[in-house]
């Protein structure tokens, strides 16, 4: 039996690594993967809570998060493909079209 705090600490560590990756990396695809990592970290703590509370709702939330993550991956990668077609780069420092 693993104490629930262990799962929460692991989840926090993975989330922190993902957050650092989003802020430190320049490649848009790698930033996107870091976002997926953060979603996974949150999923771990949702399932851990679901087990501790004897409730299935947490697992249902994880199911919905997975669905949204799949949709988001499809849209995000489509945006990157069209971005690369226009700018020839995925370096987020050079993608400053929206910057005034």
């Amino acid at each position, binding site marked *: *039996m693993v104490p629930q705090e262990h799962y929460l600490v692991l989840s926090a560590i993975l989330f922190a690594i*993902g957050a650092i990756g989003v802020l430190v990396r320049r490649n848009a695809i*790698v930033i996107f993967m870091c976002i997926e990592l953060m979603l996974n970290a949150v999923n771990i703590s949702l399932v851990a809570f679901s087990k501790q*509370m*004897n*409730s299935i709702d947490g697992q249902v939330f994880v199911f919905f998060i997975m*669905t949204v*993550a799949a949709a988001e991956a499809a849209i995000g990668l489509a945006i990157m*493909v069209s971005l690369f077609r226009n700018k020839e780069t995925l370096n987020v420092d050079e993608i400053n079209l929206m910057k005034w």
Partner: protein
Amino acid sequence: MELILFYIFGGIAIIASLGLVSGKNPVHSALFMVVVFFVVAALFVLLGAEFLAAAQILVYAGAIMVLFLFVIMLLRLQKEELRNTSRHAFFAFQVVMIFRGGFFKGGKGSFTPDAVKGFGGNTEAVAAVLFTDYLFPFELTSAILLMAMVGAVVLTKKELK
């Protein structure tokens, strides 16, 4: 035993996610990401969520990573340098500290391990909740997936006539 497995999987997850963040080549990052997904699926099994473990492998390792690798190889990316990290790392630390304290306090549910066994397993228990209490959100996800499909086609089409 369970604790040892947890530490093994947790260690692999942390090492692989560090590799994901620090790898120079996006393809290496993607392969580390596959490792993280599989290890998280293993953690779901440890937590008794077998359905989610299977869905995790099918959706993430199967579909999403193939999409990522496909786009990476399609776009022929050059190597990148890391940004000046100290300021950003400090900001990331602040973000983590904000999220750290939010421990959830709620009432206990009725799905004890015995009750889940009474349903016939984890998958059946998830289905019993998903198709009753969460039926409307479940139907909405089909709309989300349809929108994502249409959006991806529209975004990557060469020219709209």
